[in-house]
Structures are given as structure tokens and as C-alpha cells.
């Protein structure tokens, strides 16, 4: 028998296996061919389409939708993957509601955009199901490039470099590739082990060697990489987590949301994954929503997102906020954590109401307490373990428009690099563009 919602403390098995399976199914189920045809027919084939401009990887969206309309989704997939080699994952995780679909003229016309994300998934699923890789490598250039970090930016750069004829070695601190695709996003956005399957598919290009358990700064040094390779691309992500700076932060039951999500993503059996009865998530971004919703889906009775600013400032999109609300998560705005209370383990959290003036958050002095046997910290990640010789900008590795760092022959992209939003799709674009710049630099 499953432990109930009401069982106090952090418990596994709050829900039975069928309910868990149902809860963690696809957030946006795949279109079948008929649904895709109906959805594709809605595209107006806009001139200089706003959706394409809104896409960080500039996928030719009208073109790929037209290819679906005309009955050749595999060419549609090629159109997508030409620009975005992780087009399959981006179709699942992109906040399309603030990117292509927000820009869709049918959003203006009817408040219902063409469902670009789901069409992209349809096309890429068709191609990936064929189990063949649509790209081939150019003749070998004899050049070697090291990539540190096998997340979206690193994989995107590696694929592009391999395609251009370079030999690539990708190092990653973990034992698996994928970065946040594999460890960091909600399970219902990447079902059936999609992140890992996509990596396997991507590597079919050839010319990419994966080296796991190699962490930059511990097992590798930038000096060695520079000496051994013609170019280096750094995509090490943001390994650090911001502290709450609230009393009781080190109590049992207080945890980084990213660790929880990683454990959840790697768990073989979600009925064995413990979750609190009363969960409070501190933060306002996608990680906060992913942690809160998944806590609820695991069977937590009460889940609250506590965010210190107003709704409009929230990093998570309105769609994500509504998703959380629809799953029964309570959204609280203008509250910040003051103390976590309990006898050794968290039992309550004290929140203070806030005012925001000129962007600065101050406490009003009024407080409230919520039951909280589990508190997740989702207040942002920080750059950690970067080579000391690199110049930083806004606490990230400083790069120019094509990803060049302050050190010769070293490029960087993804969340660890300055500029751009911290999104999978942005990381893919940065990896691709850096690869093109590395290529032209190496080939003179």
C-alpha cells in the first residue's frame, strides 16, 4: 500500500505506481499524423516570420511546417536540425509560449498560436524513429577540439565541429552526457529516456569521443587542454547554487532543488523517491516550478512556491505558473524566507512579506509560517570551478558574440558564458555559433 498524502515527514511511496506513471507521462503528448496535419495547416507561411526571429536558433519554422503540410516530415526535421541539432529536446523543453509561439501571428489573430513546439517534436520524432543520422562529416581537417561539458552547448558545438571535419573529445564531470537535459529538467518534459536517446543519436555523426568523470579544475586543466588541442570550448554550466541566507538553512529537509530534480531524473522507481508532506520551494524560475510540480506529482500534500517578488518578475513563464497551479501548487508572491524552524529537521518555514521599490526587495516586517518538512532552494545557480585566467562578466565567463573568451583559442557557451538567457535553445545556438567561429579560426 502506498503511504498517503497525509503521512508526515519525508516519505517515499505516497502514490501507487500507476498513479506515478500517469503523473509523469508526457506533458504535451506527441501528435499523431492527423493532429500534425491539422496543426500544420494553421501556419500562414509568414514573410520573414516573427516565430523564426523569436527562435534563438533561428529555425526556419514556416519552411519546416510547410514540409509537414506537404507530407515529408523527415525533411522538416532536417530543416530543424540544420539550425538546432537538439531540436528534439528543444521541442519538449523550450518555453515556446515566450518564444516562437508568442510571436506567432495567430497568437495576435486568435490568441491561439500554431503549436510550433509540438510540430517540431512530430517532425524530429519521425526522423529519429528511422534510427539514421541525417548529417555526415566533411573530410578530416586533422584538427582536434576539446569540449568541456556535455550539456546542450557542448553537444551542439561538438556535433557541428565533427560535421565540419574536426576530431572532438567531449569531457564531462558526470558519468552521462546531456547536462541539464539529462539531470536538470522536469521528467514529464523528457519522457522515455529521451535525453539519453538524443545524445546517442547525435553521436552517430562520428568523430566525437566521450570522456566521462573528467571535471575541469579537478581531473583536467585548461592549460593541458590548450596544449593538447587546437581549440577548447567550455560549456561547464553553473555548478554552484545560491544560498538562502536564512536561519536554519542547514537543517535536515532543506535541499537544493537541482539535486532533487537530478535524483528524480535518475531514479529507476519513483515510488521509492521520498518527498515531504508539506513542501515549500523558494524561488521563481523554471527550476522552482519543476521542483514544485514534481513534488506534487510524487504525492506531496501541500506544495507552495514562495517567491520574493511579484508575479510579473517571475522567471517562470505564465504557462509554467499555470501548469503549477493546475497541479495544485500554491503560488505565493512577495514573500521571502526568514527562518526554517524545527527540532533538527525542518518542520516550519517563516516567511516575511516584501515590498519591491526600484527593483530592491525589502521586508515589511509582517511574517507568516507554513508547515514545511521539506524546503527546496531554487534561487539560482552560479558559476563554479572555472579556470582562473578567464575574465568574467556579470559572474559568468566573458565571451563575445561568437563565444570567444579572453583567452586565445578558448571559446565558451551555454549557461556558464555571458549573454543570452539560460535556456537549452540558447545554449544550442551558442555552441553552434562558437563551433562555426572555431572552424573559421582553425581553417584560417
Amino acid at each position: 500500500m502506498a503511504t498517503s498524502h497525509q503521512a508526515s515527514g519525508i516519505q517515499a511511496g505516497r502514490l501507487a505506481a500507476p498513479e506515478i506513471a500517469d503523473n509523469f507521462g508526457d506533458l504535451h503528448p506527441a501528435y499523431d499524423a492527423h493532429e500534425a496535419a491539422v496543426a500544420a495547416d494553421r501556419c500562414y507561411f509568414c514573410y520573414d516570420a516573427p516565430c523564426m526571429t523569436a527562435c534563438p536558433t533561428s529555425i526556419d519554422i514556416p519552411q519546416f511546417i510547410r514540409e509537414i503540410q506537404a507530407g515529408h516530415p523527415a525533411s522538416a526535421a532536417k530543416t530543424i536540425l540544420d539550425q538546432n541539432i537538439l531540436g528534439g529536446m528543444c521541442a519538449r523543453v523550450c518555453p515556446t509560449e515566450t518564444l516562437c509561439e508568442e510571436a506567432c501571428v495567430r497568437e495576435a489573430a486568435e490568441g491561439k498560436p500554431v503549436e510550433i513546439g509540438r510540430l517540431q517534436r512530430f517532425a524530429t520524432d519521425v526522423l529519429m524513429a528511422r534510427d539514421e543520422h541525417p548529417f555526415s562529416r566533411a573530410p578530416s581537417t586533422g584538427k582536434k577540439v576539446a569540449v568541456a561539458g556535455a550539456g546542450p552547448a557542448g553537444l551542439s558545438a561538438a556535433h557541428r565541429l565533427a560535421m565540419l571535419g574536426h576530431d572532438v573529445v567531449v569531457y564531462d564531470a558526470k558519468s552521462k552526457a546531456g547536462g541539464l537535459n539529462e539531470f536538470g529538467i522536469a521528467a514529464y518534459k523528457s519522457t522515455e529516456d529521451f535525453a539519453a536517446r538524443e545524445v546517442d543519436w547525435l553521436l552517430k555523426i562520428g568523430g566525437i569521443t566521450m570522456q566521462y568523470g573528467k571535471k575541469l579544475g579537478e581531473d583536467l586543466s585548461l592549460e593541458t587542454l590548450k596544449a593538447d588541442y587546437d581549440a577548447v570550448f567550455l560549456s561547464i554550466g553553473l555548478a554552484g547554487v545560491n544560498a538562502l541566507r536564512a536561519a536554519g538553512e542547514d537543517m535536515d529537509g532543506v535541499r537544493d532543488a537541482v539535486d532533487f530534480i537530478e535524483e528524480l531524473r535518475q531514479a529507476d522507481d519513483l515510488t521509492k523517491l521520498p518527498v515531504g508532506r508539506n513542501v515549500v520551494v523558494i524561488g521563481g524560475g523554471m527550476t522552482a516550478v519543476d521542483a514544485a510540480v514534481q513534488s506534487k506529482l510524487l504525492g506531496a500534500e501541500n506544495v507552495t512556491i514562495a517567491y520574493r517578488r511579484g508575479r510579473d518578475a517571475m522567471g517562470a513563464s505564465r504557462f509554467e505558473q499555470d501548469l503549477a497551479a493546475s497541479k495544485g501548487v500554491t503560488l505565493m508572491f512577495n514573500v521571502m524566507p526568514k527562518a526554517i524552524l524545527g527540532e533538527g529537521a525542518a518542520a516550519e518555514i517563516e516567511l516575511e512579506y516584501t515590498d519591491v521599490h526600484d527593483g530592491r526587495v525589502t521586508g515589511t516586517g509582517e511574517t507568516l509560517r507554513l508547515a514545511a518538512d521539506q524546503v527546496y532552494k531554487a534561487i539560482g545557480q552560479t558559476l563554479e570551478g572555472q579556470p582562473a585566467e578567464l575574465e568574467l562578466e556579470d559572474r559568468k565567463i566573458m565571451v563575445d558574440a561568437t563565444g570567444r573568451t579572453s583567452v586565445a583559442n578558448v571559446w565558451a557557451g551555454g549557461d556558464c558564458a555571458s549573454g543570452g538567457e539560460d535556456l537549452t535553445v540558447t545554449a544550442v545556438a551558442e555552441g553552434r555559433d562558437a563551433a562555426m567561429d572555431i572552424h573559421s579560426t582553425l581553417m584560417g
Partner: protein
Amino acid sequence: MADLTTEFLGIKSPNPFWLASAPPTDKEYNVRRAFEAGWGGVVWKTLGSEGPPVVNVNGPRYGAIFGADRRLLGLNNIELITDRSLEINLEEITRVKKDYPDRAVIVSIMVPCEEQAWKDILPKVEATGADGIELNFGCPHGMAERGMGAAVGQVPEYIQMVTEWCKKYYSKPVIVKLTPNITDVRFPARAAKNGGGDAVSLINTINSIVAVDLDQMAPEPTVGGKGTHGGYCGPAVKPIAMNMVAEIARCPQTHDLPISAIGGVTTWKDAAEFMALGAGNVQVCTAAMTYGFNVVKEMISGLSNWMDEKGYTSTQDFIGMAVPNVTDWQYLDLNFIAKAKINQDDCISCGRCFAACEDTSHQAIEMSADRVFTVKDDECVACNLCVNVCPIEGCITMEEVPAGQLDERTGKVVSDEYANWTTHPNNPSATAAE
């Protein structure tokens, strides 16, 4: 509620919506369902001579083209005339007409081009009590290879001859159904009139290959690896049918010849358009075959609402009203000047007007960096392409430039005088304006 009762050749029906001779009217069962749904009349599917009936293929008979969301726009068929015996059809027609005296029942006929064949069948048809006959001179496939259908309809002399036989051996109205597979529909229409025909109906289906199966490398519908040309109908053919109806309606020799219009009628508005062009009623097939007999209900309510709004009390009030406004190109007013205007409140910034104008027309639309689209009056020739490609109805309109104002494109003041090509200085055969 306007009265839709329509009299065509003296045949009364409660509304002007008849089902055309086609699969929907092949049997008593279907026709009874049609009348229960509200159809004003039917043209019974074409009867052939006594004796063993024709046979149809046993593979697919229809092919189609589709618009967005698989909306059927055009249907093609290779079905022949009725494949049931003459006797059964005649019995059924008799029963149905008796049970539905207020509905029009017309019998379509196609027999060989010999006087005896017509002399044999016509008294039997007359005995059913049906209100009239329609001569199938249209079917472009199958029967034409046997010297019937379109093979007759393409030769005006044959049309006249057969029509004369029918008038000789049949006492009730004779409607001659015309094929569009000719160069000038006025010739067969005149032949029908000269033969004594009471009316024409048009168009029959258009010869077509609707699709090619690229795996079998054969036309669709594909029967055992081969296909043949079939008859095309449905919304896609309506413009062709309307032109042919209008040509007959405005021809001095045939303008008084009643017309039953056929070709893609799907809603009340299609019917109103055909009738404005001179048709006394309309016949429908593809809409019924696509959506079932209940489509007539919208046709009835829609036409009735529109007539109420316009103050028409009878279909006679608007039949033919558009005919005087159908003219030849050379009489169009060249002093009429218009410019496209984009309503910025309605515009969704898709840019299709810009792509169409910039790539394929007159470079008369400006696109700003923030996707605001505006018409350049000094380039716009009012071609209307932007209106047609805009996905938002009414967003782009054609605005007349009133007389006395400057046309920025030509630098001339718009004249209030009518002037056409016949008097234009660029026309080598121009005649002096009166």
C-alpha cells in the same frame, strides 16, 4: 421568413435547391431521405435503355483534392449512369413522386443517339408522373466512349437533334444538361434552344485527372494499376460554372433560356450568386456527398435570411439581377481608381501581402523594421492580390479614389467621366469617344 418557393419551367418546388443527377439520387431510399431533409427537388440519376444495365468498376470511383484541414474542394468520379435496371428505377420514381407531390422530380436520361431509343424510353418516363426530364449530354467518361454523354454534348447539331426528338415524344419540360468540356458554351446552349429545349442545366463535370499515385505511377482513382480521366466537380469548379451560366444568361440569343445552375454549390451564398447570374434554381451534388443531406438546411436558412435582409420576398426578385453587370473587359471603366488600404488594427503582421506584392506584383507595400505594413499609394495599381492573400477577412480593403483627387501613381487627377479601352489612345482600333 422569405418564401423560397420557386417555379422553374412551371414546376413548383418549396425551395430552389435540387439534388443533381448523381449518386445521391440513384435510389428511392436516398431520394426519400433527401426529401425528408428538405430538398426542393431531385434530378433522378441518369437512366439508360432497357436491358442489362451498365456495370461500374469495382475499385475506387472517386478521387479528391483537399484544402486546409482536409476540406474537400474538388471531387472527381468515374462512375457511370445508373447500374440498376430501368424497370426498378421507373417503379421507384413513380412511388416517390406520388408520395411527394410538392417536390420536383426530374428524370435524367442517356440513351444512344438514335431516335428509336428515345422514342422507346420517353413514354415510360412520362408514365411515372415525374415533372420533367433532363438530357445527360455531359458525362465525360465511360459513356462518352460509347457515343453518349459528352460525345453528344460536344456536337451542337446532335444536341439539337436529340432535343427535337424529346420534344416530339415527351410532353413535359425538357432540360438539356450541358458539358463544360467545350470551348464556348453558348453554342451548345443555342442548339438546345433551337431544338426546342425548355431550359439548360450546367455544368456537368469537367474532364480531369485529380491526382497521380506516385507509387503505382497511375492516375487516381486507381483501378488495378490504371486510372482514367473522370468528371470533376465540387467547390473548385464553381467559378468555371458561374462564368458559363453568365455567358448564356447575357447572350442575346439565349438570355431568355431558363437555367438550372450546377457546380460547387455548398452554401446559400453560392446559390444566391448563381441565381443573381440568371439561374432559376440550383442543383447540388458534392456538398451533399461530402456532408450528407442535412446541408440543405443551412442553404434554406441562409438564403431566407439574406432575402429578408435585402427585402426580397420571392426568388424571382433577384434572379438575373447581376446579369447586366457582367460585361466584356473592354467596357470596364479605366477612370475608376482604387488603392489598397491596410487596417492596422486588424493586421496581424504576417507579411503575406508584402511577400505577394514585393515578389510578384508592384512593390507597393512598405514593411517597417517593426513589421508595420503600409500601402505606397504612388505604386499601388489596386490589383487586389494583397486582399486575396491576407488571412484576415476585411483587413485590407480597396478604397476608391474619388473624382477630383490626385492619383499619386500616375500624377493625374481622377476624372469623373467613364472611359474604357474602346476609346483609349493606346488602342490602335480606338473609336472616338462620343
